[in-house]
C-alpha cells in the first residue's frame, strides 16, 4: 500500500480482498478434497455466502462515494513499475455485488443439480475458481491483471463447458469457446500494449478516470498525442478495435458470438452463472471501464454492431428447438442491447440492463435447468432415446412444475420488458436513449433504434413461443409414448429457493419504487452520464407505451400459434426460416472461410518445411555426397587406376614372357632362332 489509508478504507479493501480470496480458497480446498466429495459444495457455497455479505458491505460503503484505489508494487521491468491493486468505484462494486448475488443461488442450485455427478468436487472447484476470477476481474486496477483475469474467466469457462469431457460435443464446444475468446484476448492484449506504449502505465484509474491520461490525449493531424508520446492515429483505432474484439468475444457479439450457443453443452447451472449472467457481461463491463477511450465514431460503430447482434440473435432464437439454445441466443441478443446502449452513450442504462439481465436470465436458465433435469428424469425412467432439451417434446408442464412455471413467467416478462419487471426499466431506458441519440445524426442511423425496437418485438415472440411450447398445451412426448411414467416436480429446496430469490430480484421493487420510469431507478441515477436528457421529449412516453402494447399482441399471437394451433402454422421451408434455423450459416461460413484455410496454411507450412527447407538441406547434402562420390571415384579409378594399370602392364608383360618358359626345349630354340632371324632381318632392313 503506497498510500496510508484511513481505517475504514483499509477495512473495505480487506473485505474486498476477502471477497475475492474466499472462492479461491474454496477452490484450493476442493481441489485437495477427493473428487466425489460432497463437502465441496458446502465449502464453495459458504465462501460465496460470506462473499455476498462482505460485498454487500463493501457496496454500501463505496456506492456513490469517492472511488477507492489502492495498489502495491508487483514487479519492475526495465524502468516500468507494474502495480497490482484494487480500484473500487460504482461500477466495480456493483459488479462485485452482482456476481456474488448471482453466484449464491447458482451455488445452492448446483448442490442439488450436480448431486449425482461423479466429479461433484471438481465441479465446485471449477465454479469457485470462476467466481474468484470474475470477482478479481471486476475489482482489479491494472490492465495487465485485468487481462490476466479476463483470460482466467475464459479458462474456467473452458473447464466448465467441457466439464463432461467425455462428450465430444462438449469438448468441441469448449475448444471453440476458448479459441474464440482467445481471438478477443489478442485484441485486448494488443490494445493494452498500445495503451501501455502510449501512456507508459497499466493503471486503469490513472488512465480512464475523469481527467485521466486518456482524456488528455488528443487526436490531431493523423497523430495520436498523449502527454508522453505520440503515434500514428491508426493505432488508436487498432486499440479500439482490439478492445471491441475482446468485448465481442467475451460478450458474444457479432461476429465472434458463435461460441456461446455451443457453450450450452456445459451443465445448466454453469450456463446460468457464466454464460448468461456474469462472464458474458464482462465484455460490457470492460466497455464501462475503458469508456472514455472511445471516440464518437467508434461508439457509433459499437452501437451498430450491438444493434445488429441483437437483431440477428433474436431472429435466430425464433426457430431454435433446443431450450438452452433459445436462451443462449436471447442472451446474445440482450448483450447486443447492452453494447448498443454503450454505443449510444447510454452508459448507465447499459450497466442497468446488465444487472437486471443477469437476474432474469439466470432465473430463466435455472428454470430451464429444472425442466431439463425433469425431462432427463423422464428419459432415464422410461429408457427413452430423446434429447431432454428439445422443446418440441415438451408442453403442458405448468401443471407438473407450478413454481417453475411462475418463475419462468416472471423471467420471460422481464426479458420481454413488460412493466412491473426490472427488464422493463432497463430496456426502455436503452430504447429511449437510442432514439434520442439518433436524433442529431444522419438519417440512416435511425436504423439502430428501429432495429432495437424490432428486436424487442421479436424477443416477445420467441419468449412467448418458448413458454407456450414448454408450459402450455399438451405434453407432446406423451403422444409418442402414451405409457409414459411421469414422476416429476419442482424439486427440493435447493431448487425452489434460488428460483424464488431470483424471481423476486427480477421484479421492479429492487431497483425502483416507481415501476414505470426508468430514470427513477437508484442504480441508473448513480450511473447516468453527465449529458443525460431529462424527461422532456416525446420518446419517453411514446416508446414504452408503443413497445408494450405491441409486445402484448405479439405474445398473444405466439401463444395462439403454438398452444391453440390457431390462425396458421409457420412454413418451415422459407429462406428466412432456414437462415434463422441454421443460425445465419455463420458456423459454416467460419468453418470454410477461417478454420479450413488456417489448417490448410498449417499443412502448407509443414509441406514447405518438409519439402522446401528440408529439401534445400537435403539438396546440399546430396550435392556434398555427390562431390564426395566423385572424388572417391576419381581416387579409385583415376589415381589408383593409373597405379593399377602400371602394375597390370608389368604383370601382363611378365605373363607374356612366362609363356615362353613352357619347358619345351624346341620352343626355346624356336624362339631363339626366331629372334636371331628377326635381328638378321632388322640388320638387313636397317
Amino acid at each position, binding site marked *: 500500500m503506497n498510500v496510508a489509508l484511513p481505517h475504514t478504507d483499509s477495512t473495505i479493501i480487506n473485505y474486498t480482498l476477502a471477497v475475492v480470496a474466499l472462492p479461491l480458497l474454496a477452490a484450493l480446498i476442493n481441489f485437495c478434497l477427493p473428487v466425489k466429495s460432497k463437502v465441496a459444495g458446502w465449502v464453495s457455497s459458504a465462501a460465496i455466502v460470506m462473499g455476498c455479505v462482505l460485498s454487500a458491505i463493501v457496496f454500501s460503503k463505496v456506492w456513490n462515494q469517492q472511488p477507492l484505489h489502492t495498489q502495491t508494487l508487483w514487479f519492475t521491468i526495465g524502468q516500468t513499475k507494474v502495480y497490482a491493486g484494487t480500484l473500487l468505484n460504482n461500477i466495480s462494486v456493483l459488479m462485485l455485488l452482482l456476481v456474488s448475488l448471482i453466484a449464491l443461488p447458482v451455488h445452492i442450485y448446483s448442490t442439488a443439480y450436480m448431486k449425482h455427478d461423479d466429479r461433484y468436487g471438481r465441479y465446485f472447484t471449477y465454479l469457485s475458481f470462476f467466481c474468484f476470477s470474475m470477482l478479481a476481474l471486476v475489482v482489479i486496477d491494472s490492465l495487465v491483471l485485468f487481462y490476466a483475469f479476463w483470460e482466467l474467466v475464459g479458462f474456467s469457462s473452458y473447464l466448465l463447458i467441457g466439464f463432461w469431457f467425455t462428450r465430444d460435443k462438449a469438448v468441441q464446444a469448449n475448444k471453440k469457446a476458448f479459441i474464440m475468446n482467445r481471438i478477443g484476448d489478442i485484441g485486448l492484449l494488443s490494445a493494452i500494449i498500445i495503451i501501455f506504449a502510449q501512456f507508459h502505465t497499466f493503471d486503469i484509474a490513472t488512465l480512464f478516470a475523469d481527467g485521466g491520461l486518456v482524456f488528455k490525449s488528443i487526436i490531431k493531424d493523423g497523430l495520436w498525442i498523449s502527454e508522453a508520446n505520440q503515434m500514428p492515429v491508426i493505432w488508436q483505432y487498432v486499440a479500439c478495435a482490439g478492445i471491441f474484439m475482446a468485448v465481442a468475444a467475451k460478450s458474444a457479439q457479432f461476429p465472434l458470438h458463435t461460441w456461446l450457443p455451443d457453450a450450452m453443452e456445459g451443465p445448466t447451472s454453469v450456463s446460468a452463472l457464466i454464460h448468461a449472467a456474469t462472464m458474458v457481461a464482462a465484455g460490457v463491463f470492460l466497455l464501462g471501464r475503458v469508456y472514455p477511450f472511445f471516440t464518437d465514431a467508434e461508439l457509433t460503430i459499437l452501437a451498430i454492431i450491438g444493434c445488429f447482434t441483437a437483431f440477428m440473435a433474436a431472429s435466430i432464437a425464433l426457430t431454435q428447438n433446443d431450450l438452452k439454445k433459445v436462451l443462449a441466443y436471447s442472451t446474445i441478443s440482450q448483450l447486443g442491447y447492452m453494447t448498443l446502449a454503450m454505443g449510444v452513450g447510454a452508459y448507465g442504462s447499459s450497466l442497468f440492463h446488465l444487472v437486471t439481465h443477469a437476474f432474469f436470465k439466470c432465473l430463466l436458465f435455472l428454470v430451464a435447468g429444472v425442466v431439463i433435469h425433469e425431462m432427463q428424469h423422464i428419459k432415464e425412467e422410461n429408457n427413452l432415446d430423446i434429447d431432454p432439451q428439445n422443446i418440441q417434446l415438451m408442453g403442458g408442464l405448468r401443471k407438473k412444475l407450478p413454481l417453475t412455471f411462475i418463475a419462468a413467467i416472471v423471467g420471460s416478462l422481464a426479458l420481454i420488458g413488460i412493466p412491473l419487471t426490472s427488464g422493463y426499466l432497463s430496456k426502455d431506458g436503452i430504447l429511449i436513449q437510442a432514439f434520442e441519440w439518433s436524433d442529431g445524426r444522419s438519417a440512416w442511423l435511425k436504423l439502430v433504434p428501429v432495429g432495437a425496437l424490432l428486436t424487442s418485438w421479436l424477443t416477445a415472440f420467441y419468449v412467448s413461443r418458448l413458454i407456450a411450447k414448454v408450459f402450455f398445451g399438451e405434453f407432446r412426448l406423451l403422444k409418442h409414448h402414451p405409457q409414459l411414467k411421469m414422476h416429476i416436480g419442482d424439486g427440493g429446496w435447493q431448487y425452489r429457493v434460488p428460483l424464488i430469490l431470483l424471481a423476486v430480484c427480477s421484479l421492479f421493487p429492487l431497483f425502483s419504487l416507481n415501476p414505470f420510469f426508468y430514470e427513477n431507478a437508484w442504480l441508473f441515477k448513480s450511473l447516468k452520464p453527465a449529458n443525460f436528457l431529462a424527461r422532456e421529449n416525446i420518446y419517453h412516453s411514446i416508446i414504452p407505451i408503443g413497445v408494450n402494447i405491441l409486445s402484448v399482441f405479439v405474445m398473444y399471437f405466439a401463444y395462439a400459434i403454438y398452444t391453440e394451433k390457431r390462425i396458421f402454422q409457420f412454413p418451415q421451408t422459407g429462406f428466412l426460416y432456414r437462415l434463422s434455423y441454421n443460425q445465419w450459416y455463420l458456423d459454416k461460413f467460419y468453418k470454410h472461410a477461417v478454420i479450413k484455410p488456417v489448417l490448410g496454411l498449417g499443412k502448407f507450412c509443414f509441406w514447405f518445411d518438409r519439402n522446401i527447407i528440408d529439401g534445400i538441406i537435403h539438396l546440399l547434402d546430396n550435392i556434398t555426397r555427390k562431390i564426395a562420390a566423385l572424388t572417391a571415384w576419381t581416387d579409385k579409378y583415376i589415381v589408383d587406376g593409373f597405379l593399377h594399370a602400371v602394375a597390370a602392364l608389368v604383370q601382363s608383360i611378365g605373363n607374356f614372357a612366362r609363356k615362353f618358359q613352357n619347358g619345351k626345349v624346341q620352343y626355346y630354340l*624356336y624362339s631363339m632362332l*626366331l629372334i636371331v632371324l628377326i635381328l638378321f*632381318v632388322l640388320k638387313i632392313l636397317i
Partner: protein
Amino acid sequence: MSMIRLMFYVMSFIAIASALYAALSKNLVRSIFVFFVTLFALAGLYVLALADFVAVTQVVIYVGGILVLILFAFMLSRRETLNVIQQRKSTFINMAKVPALILAALFLVVLVNVILKADADNLPWIKEAIAQKNVITPTSSTIDNIGVNLMTTYLLPFEAISILLLMALVGAAHLSRKEGSA
C-alpha cells in the same frame, strides 16, 4: 659344263634331297638310313672341295661311328618307342610343323641373302691367297701337310679335343649305366 661341275650338282642334289627326305620322313628308321646317304653325298662334296682327308674322315667317323651309334641306340630302346612314334598321324603337311617350316625357310632366305651379299669369292683374304698361290690345287697332296700342322700349329686344340673326347666317353658311359646308382 665340266664334269666336276656336274658332279657337284649331283652330289649337292643328293645331299639336299636326302636331307629333306630325312627331315620330312615320319619313319625314324628311314630317316636314319637316308641320313647315311646325305653323309656320303657330303663326303663327295668334300672331295670336290679338294679335302679328301676330311671326306674320308667323314665316312669313317660319321658313317662308321655316329650312325652306327644311332642305330644301336635306336635298337637298344624298346619297340614301343617305335610304336609311339608310328602312331602319329601321318599327314604330309602337319599344321604343327608350319611355323618350323616358315622359320627354316626364312633362315634359308637370310642365309642365302647373306652369302650372296658377302660375295665370298671376292673376299680380300681369298684374293690374296689366290695371288700368293696359297690355294689347294687338285693335284697337291694335303694329308702330310695336315699331319704336320696338326702336330705343330694345332697341337693345343688337338690335345683339348682329345681331353674332350675322353670326357665325352666317360660321360656317355656314366649316363648309359643302369638306373639305381645314378
